[in-house]
């Protein structure tokens, strides 16, 4: 019993470390990818003892900069809520990784350790609950700043996030119907089966519309461009206008961690998670029936690498969308959520149900 707790804690530390490093790495990716897309070079000047390393030290420089900035709390602000708001934001964003598996399992002799921090049989609902709790961080930040404009920004942000929770949740009901489970580990297991004899039964092949709606609603629920009206990037007053230093850094980190959450969830549900095509826990099982055995450590490595590569590709795609699209006006974003995304997700459920009934 205690061993299970210790194992879970160690896994939690590893997952946290991986996610925070990945989020910091994403700041570098954002700068470099946007630069390469825009025919320029990007940030490449931060160096340690003369070694520049294509600007990979810039996230460290940014972190140091934020730590050394003045920690300012407005005079009439609610001090407790002001300090707690970024903590709430980051805490729930990081908690969402508790039920997302990075691999199948690792066999240490007689002990089989699942590469998932917590195996809850409503794991998917847990992730959505954590995403919904983000709204508290936003509203707390806007209210505690004691600034009318930042409060309006918080209202905008919370209304946007709430509105897009619906298509987000409804888009995965099709996935539920196909895989008959709410536990993300089981959903990924079932994506290892083959469709028509040769195609892996990934979510994107059985639920293409669900994938598109999920990505769009996920972008909106995490306030990423093109839905970043609440944040606006210096065009409009956002909910964190009174924050400086590391508190602001935590909000920015939350933004990137949420991007990773959406990417990880989309790979788990639609792109097969840690599934390498045709790789089972014993080796490669090709469509013809040929079995090519692979040693267990290599299977684990392949699974973890496959998950990371898929998450990275999706993050790249989300960054590409961010630097291509102009942002929506607020009423356009709300209209899109309620009058287009939500009916589309409902139609997806109807069509999926009809097709499944017709097949069986």
């Amino acid at each position, binding site marked *: 019993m205690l061993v299970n707790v210790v194992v879970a804690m160690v896994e939690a530390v590893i997952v946290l470390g991986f996610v925070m490093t990945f989020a910091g790495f994403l700041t570098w990716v954002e700068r470099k990818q946007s*630069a*390469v*897309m825009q*025919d*320029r070079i990007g940030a490449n000047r931060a160096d340690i003892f003369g070694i520049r390393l294509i600007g990979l030290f810039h996230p460290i420089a940014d972190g140091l900069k934020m730590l050394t900035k003045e920690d300012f709390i407005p005079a009439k602000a609610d001090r407790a809520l002001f300090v707690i708001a970024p903590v709430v934001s980051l805490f729930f964003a990081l908690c969402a990784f508790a039920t997302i598996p990075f691999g199948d399992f690792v066999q240490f002799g007689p002990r089989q350790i699942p590469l998932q921090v917590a195996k809850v049989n409503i794991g998917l609902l847990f992730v959505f609950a954590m995403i919904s709790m983000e709204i508290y961080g936003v509203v707390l930040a806007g209210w505690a700043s004691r600034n009318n404009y930042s409060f309006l920004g918080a209202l905008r942000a919370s209304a946007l996030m709430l509105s897009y929770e619906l298509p987000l949740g409804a888009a995965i009901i099709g996935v539920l119907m196909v895989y008959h489970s709410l536990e993300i580990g089981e959903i990924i297991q079932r994506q290892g089966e083959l469709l028509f004899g040769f195609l892996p039964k990934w979510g994107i092949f059985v639920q293409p519309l669900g994938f*598109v709606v999920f990505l769009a609603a996920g972008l909106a629920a995490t306030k990423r461009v093109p839905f970043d009206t609440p944040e606006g990037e210096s065009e409009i007053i956002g909910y964190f206008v009174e924050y400086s230093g590391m508190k602001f850094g935590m909000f920015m980190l939350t933004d990137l961690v949420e991007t990773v959450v959406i990417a990880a969830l989309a790979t788990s549900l639609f792109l097969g998670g840690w599934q390498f095509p045709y790789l089972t826990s014993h080796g490669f099982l090709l469509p013809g029936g040929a079995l090519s055995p692979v040693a267990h450590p290599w299977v684990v490595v392949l699974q973890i690498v496959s998950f990371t590569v898929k998450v990275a590709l999706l993050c790249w795609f989300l960054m*590409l*969308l961010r630097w*291509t*699209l102009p942002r929506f006006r607020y009423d356009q974003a709300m209209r899109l959520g309620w009058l287009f995304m939500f009916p589309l997700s409902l139609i997806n459920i109807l069509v999926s149900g009809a097709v499944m009934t017709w097949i069986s």
Partner: protein
Amino acid sequence: MIRKPTYSELDRAYFPGLLAGTWVTARHFFANLTRHVLGLVYPPARRRASVTIQYPEQHRPLSPRLRTLHRLTKRADGSPRCVACMMCETVCPALCIYIVAKEKPDPDFEKQPESFIIDLGRCVFCGFCVEACPEDAIRMDTAILEFSALSREDLVFNMEQLLRLEPVETDTAS
């Protein structure tokens, strides 16, 4: 009469236009990425990977007629060509040239500047002094654009030695 823009059905579907736009930026991304990676091995042939000029290692190419830092030209014997006629001081719209004249024993020239001060904090780099000078004594062709100082006093180039900067092109009319 303002005509409302009409959108075709393909435009209003939003996603085809979105994908077309994303395709353009993705194309730029992959093209530039391959150029960056290949640029590590051998220099680029046709198109550059980025349009960035890495200052201060590289500089933007300047036009030869760009009005940059001033210099006073010299005669063959090293004395300044300036005869302290005050034409540049009079025409300067920013009133940044201060000349004090003294006598030159040579009867061909009669005057020479005792002190020639240009306050670069006031100068607007219009080039009127260059056009007004009858002796071709002042030019703005040094191509020096970096003369920042740490105080306003340091921006007042008040020694003629500071004004006798090496020219970029050789002085053909000597």
